[in-house]
C-alpha cells in the first residue's frame, strides 16, 4: 500500500473525524467512562493480557484504515484468537451500550474500520487459520482474519482458487472482504464476494454466535448471510467463514491493447461484451494513469497511448482461443495500435503489474489524490469519460482514470497538492461532481470500496428516505441498540424503537427532544 497512507484524502463533504455528539445519536448513550471501564474489566477477564491493548501509543496505530484522512484513536483494541473470545467482547459491549468496530487488515478505502473514541476496536488479525480446504466440496473454511490471497495459495496446489481478487488481496482479510462485498478485476466473469461466501459463523451485536448459510446452498429461512455481506460491519462480526473455491481454468490468456483515446477503448469494451464474450477481466487505464504506471513500474505499456485495455480470457482452451481471435479483431476494428499477448504467468504478471500498481504509482506523479469508486452502465462509459475530461479541464484538476471497464466501475484518481491552498477543496469538488455524474447515469456511488463514513452523506442522492428507512429495518432487527459500527453507511441517525406489540417504554430521550426519528 505504499503511496497510499497519508497521501490520500476523501471526497466526502464530512470534514475530519465525525464529532462524537453527531455519531452518538445512533441509539446508544454516547461516551460513558463507567460503561467503558466495565467493558475493560469484562474483556480482561475473557481474553489473555496480550490480546488487550489500552496503551495510548499502541492504540494510535489503529487510528485509521486505508482512508487515512479520517483518524480516531479507539478507547480499546482487542485481538481475540477465537470466536468465543470475540463473542465475549461483543457481549460486554452490548451489555454496557459501548459501540464496537470490527477491523480486519485495515485496508478499507471508505473509513469503514474507523474506530470510535468511545468504543472498542475488534481486530481479527490473530484469527488466521485456514481450517479446511475441500476440493471435493469446492469449499474452504477459514477464519475472518485470513488473508484473501492465502486462500488461493492454499487451494491452488489442488487445482482451485478463491475468485474474488481485490487489488489489495495480498493484505486484506476475508472478513473485511465479506463486510465490504469486495470486488476485483476478475469479478466481471466470476462475481463478487457475495457470490463466493456461502456460510459464516456470525457474532450478533448481542454477542450471540449463530450460523448463517453453510456448506450447502439455499439454507432454510431468510438469506441473512446475503444481507450481512456488504453490510460493512454494521450488523455484527463474521468469524469462521465458508467460501466457494473455483476450479482453475484450463487456459488463461491476457491481452494488452493500446488505443488512441478512451473513446476507442470504451467502444471496444462494449463491442467485446456485445459479441457475447464474457472475459475474466477488462481493465482500462487512461494516458495519465499509464504515464504514472510506466514511471513507477516500467511495465512497458505502448508509448503514446491515450488508453490501454487489459483483457483477460480464461476457461476451456478452445473457447479461449476463439474468444481471443474475436477480441483481437474487435480491438483492431476500434483502432488498437499495439497489442501484446501473454500466454505464460511471467508475461501475464508483467501486463498486470502496471494495472495493479496504478494507485500507488499515481502517488509518484501527485503528492495527494482522491480515489473514487463510482459505477455507471458500461455503455455510458465513453460519454462519462468525456464529461470527466471536461470537468478536469474546466477546473484545472488532473484526473487519472484506472478502472474495471467491463462492469463500468470507475476509479478516477483526482490529483492535487495539499500544500497548495484551495487545491484539496477543488479536488473534492471535482470528485463529488464525478459521483453526481455516476448517479445521473443511473449508476452507483460505490462499486466495491463501500460507503463507510466517507460516502454516507451521498447515500440520499442514490436512495430515497424510504429506501434508507427500509435498510435500517434490517439494521434494527440485528442491532436495535446501535452498537455495531455506528455512524457508518447511513447518513442520518435513526432510533429503532420497540417492535410494535412488544414491550413499550418511554420514548428515547433523543426522540422526545426531536433530535432523532424513531420508526
Amino acid at each position, binding site marked *: 500500500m505504499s503511496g497510499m497512507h497519508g497521501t490520500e484524502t476523501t471526497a466526502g463533504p464530512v470534514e475530519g473525524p465525525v464529532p462524537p455528539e453527531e455519531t452518538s445519536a445512533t441509539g446508544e448513550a454516547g461516551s460513558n467512562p463507567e460503561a467503558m471501564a466495565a467493558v475493560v474489566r469484562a474483556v480482561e477477564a475473557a481474553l489473555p493480557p496480550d490480546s488487550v491493548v489500552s496503551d495510548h501509543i499502541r492504540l494510535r496505530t489503529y487510528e485509521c484504515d486505508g482512508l487515512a484522512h479520517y483518524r480516531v484513536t479507539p478507547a480499546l483494541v482487542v485481538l481475540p484468537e477465537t470466536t468465543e473470545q470475540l463473542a465475549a467482547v461483543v457481549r460486554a459491549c452490548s451489555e454496557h451500550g459501548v459501540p464496537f468496530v470490527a477491523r480486519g487488515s485495515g485496508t478499507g478505502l471508505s473509513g469503514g474500520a474507523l474506530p470510535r473514541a468511545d468504543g472498542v476496536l475488534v481486530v481479527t488479525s490473530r484469527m488466521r487459520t485456514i481450517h479446511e480446504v475441500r476440493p*471435493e*466440496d469446492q469449499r474452504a473454511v477459514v477464519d475472518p482474519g485470513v488473508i484473501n490471497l492465502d486462500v488461493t495459495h492454499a487451494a491452488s496446489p489442488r487445482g482451485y482458487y478463491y475468485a474474488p481478487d481485490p487489488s489489495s488481496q495480498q493484505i486484506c482479510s476475508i472478513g473485511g472482504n465479506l463486510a465490504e462485498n469486495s470486488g476485483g478485476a476478475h469479478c466481471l466473469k466470476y462475481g463478487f464476494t457475495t457470490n463466493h461466501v456461502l456460510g459464516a459463523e456470525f457474532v450478533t451485536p448481542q454477542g450471540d454466535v449463530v450460523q448463517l448459510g453453510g456448506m450447502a446452498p439455499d439454507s432454510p429461512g431468510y438469506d441473512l448471510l446475503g444481507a450481512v455481506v456488504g453490510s460493512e460491519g454494521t450488523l455484527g462480526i463474521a468469524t469462521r467463514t465458508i467460501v466457494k473455491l473455483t476450479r482453475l481454468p484450463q487456459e488463461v490468456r491476457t491481452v494488452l491493447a493500446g488505443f488512441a483515446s478512451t473513446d476507442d477503448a470504451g467502444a471496444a469494451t462494449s463491442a467485446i461484451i456485445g459479441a457475447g464474450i464474457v472475459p475474466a477481466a477488462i481493465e482500462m487505464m487512461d494516458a495519465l494513469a499509464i504515464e504514472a504506471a510506466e514511471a513507477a513500474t516500467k511495465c512497458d505499456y505502448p508509448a503514446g497511448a491515450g488508453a490501454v485495455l487489459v483483457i483477460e480470457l480464461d476457461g476451456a482452451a478452445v473457447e479461449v482461443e476463439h474468444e481471443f481471435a474475436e477480441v483481437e479483431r474487435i480491438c483492431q476494428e476500434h483502432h488498437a495500435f499495439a497489442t501484446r499477448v501473454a500466454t505464460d504467468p511471467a508475461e501475464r504478471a508483467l501486463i498486470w503489474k502496471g494495472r495493479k500498481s496504478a494507485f500507488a504509482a499515481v502517488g509518484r506523479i501527485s503528492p495527494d489524490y482522491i480515489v473514487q469508486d463510482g459505477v455507471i452502465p458500461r455503455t455510458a462509459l465513453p460519454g462519462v469519460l468525456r464529461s470527466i475530461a471536461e470537468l478536469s479541464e474546466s477546473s484545472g484538476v488532473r484526473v487519472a482514470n484506472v478502472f474495471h471497464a467491463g*462492469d463500468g466501475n470507475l476509479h478516477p484518481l483526482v490529483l492535487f497538492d495539499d500544500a497548495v491552498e484551495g487545491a484539496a477543496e477543488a479536488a473534492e469538488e471535482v470528485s463529488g461532481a464525478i459521483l453526481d455524474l455516476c448517479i445521473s447515469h443511473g449508476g452507483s456511488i460505490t*462499486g466495491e470500496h463501500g460507503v463507510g463514513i466517507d460516502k454516507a452523506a451521498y447515500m440520499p442522492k442514490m436512495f430515497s428516505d424510504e429506501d434508507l428507512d*427500509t435498510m435500517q429495518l434490517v439494521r434494527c*432487527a440485528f442491532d436495535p441498540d446501535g452498537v455495531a459500527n455506528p455512524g457508518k453507511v447511513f447518513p442520518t441517525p435513526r432510533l429503532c424503537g420497540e*417492535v410494535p406489540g412488544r414491550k413499550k417504554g418511554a420514548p428515547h430521550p433523543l426522540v422526545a427532544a426531536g433530535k432523532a426519528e424513531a420508526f
Partner: protein
Amino acid sequence: MTAVGLDLGAARTALSAACGEVADGTPADAVDGVTPALVARPGSTPEVAEVLRAAAAHRLALVPRGRGTKLTWGRPPERADLVVDLSRMDAVFDHAAGDLIVETQAGTTLAEVQRTVAGAGQRLALDETVPGGSIGGTLATNASGPGRVAFGTARDLLIGVTVVRADGVVAKAGGRVVKNVAGYDLGKLVIGSFGTLAVVTEAVFRLHPLPAARSVVAAPFERPEEAQRLVQAVLQAQVVPSAVEVSWRPGGTGTVSVLLEGIEAGVEGRTATTRQLLGDASSAAAELPEGWAAHPWAGLPGRPTALKATFALSGLARVLEAARAAAADAGLDLDLRGSAGAGVLYGALATGAEPAAVARVVERLRAECTAVGGALVVLDAAPEVAAAVDAWGPVPALDLVRRVKERFDPERRLAPGRFVGGL
C-alpha cells in the same frame, strides 16, 4: 378464513379507491385451502402501495400472487383476507442489451422476459422449472434449475429490486448496474421469503449471452457411489459444465447428465472429454431432453409430496443412499432429481402416501442431509401429510429471522404462518 372484527365492506371501498380491479375471492383464489375474501389486481408499483396502505388501514392479512403456480409452497397461511395479484404488472420495462441488464415488473412471466432478451442473443440465466411462473413468484420461492451450477441462483442475478412493505411504503435497493455495494442488499432477503417480508413489484437482473451451441452428455449409474464418482469426475475436470444433473428412482438405473455450452468447436471438444470422464456407457445429444428443468413431481397426479434436499457436494452418495433406504423401509416410491453439481436434489413421493410413512422418510433424509452440511425442506404436500411432517426442519439463526420479520411486518399481515418457524 377472515379474522373477526374486520369491516370488509369498508376495506373493499378503500381497495377499490386504491386500484380499479377488486373482486370477491373465489375458491379458485384459495391459497393452499384458504379462500381470500378479496382479490386486488394493481397495475403499478404506486397502485400496489395504495393497496397495501388500504390493507394496513383495514388490518387485512394478504398473500401476494404472481401467476399462482406455486401458491401451495410453504405452509398454508393462517389468514388471507386479500390476495394481491400481480398478473397485470407484466411489462418488461427495459432491456439494455449493451449493459446486459433487464428491468421488469414482478408479474411478468419468466418466459416473457426470456423472449424479450433472446432477441439480442441474451438470457436471464434462470431455468423455468414450471411453465408460467412470474418473476415475483420465482424470486419469492427462490426457484432454480440445472443452470445453477454455472450461473448460480436468483441471488446471483438480481441486481436491483423494488418492494412494497406491509405498511405500503415503497423501497428500492441495489440499482441498474451490475456492480454496486451502496447500502444493504435487500434483494437477498426477499429471495426465498415466500411473500412474508414485502411484495416485490419490480426487479433488475444481469443477463448472460445465449450460447451458440450446447450438448448434453449422459451416463447411467446403478449405485449411489457410482453417481458420486461420475459427478466428481466432471466437477474436478476443466470442462466448465453449465449443469450436472442426477436423476434416480432408487432400485432402478439412474442418470448423470452434464450440460456443456459455448461455441461449437469448444462444446465438441468438451463433449468428447466429458464422455471419456463418464465412461463407455455415456452418450451425447445436441438438445436438452424433454422436461430438463422440471422437478420430479411435474406431471404427477394429485398432490404429491415435494422435497428439496441440500448437501455438501461430496455428500451426494450418502444422501442418495439414505433416500433409497428410507423410501424402501417406508414402502414408498421416491423419485429424485436435481443439481447434484450444486448440492441440490428434489424428491417426489406420490400422492396418497401414508403421512406417517412420509414423515419417516423426511426424518431420515433430513438427518443425513444435515450430517453433510445441508437441509431437507418439504416444499409442498397434501394437508394430511403437511400436518404429519415438520416442513422446514431446524432453521439456523431463527431468532434473527424472526426479528427481521417483526421489523418488516410487525402486525404479521403478510402471508402469516407460511414461513419457517410459523412466521
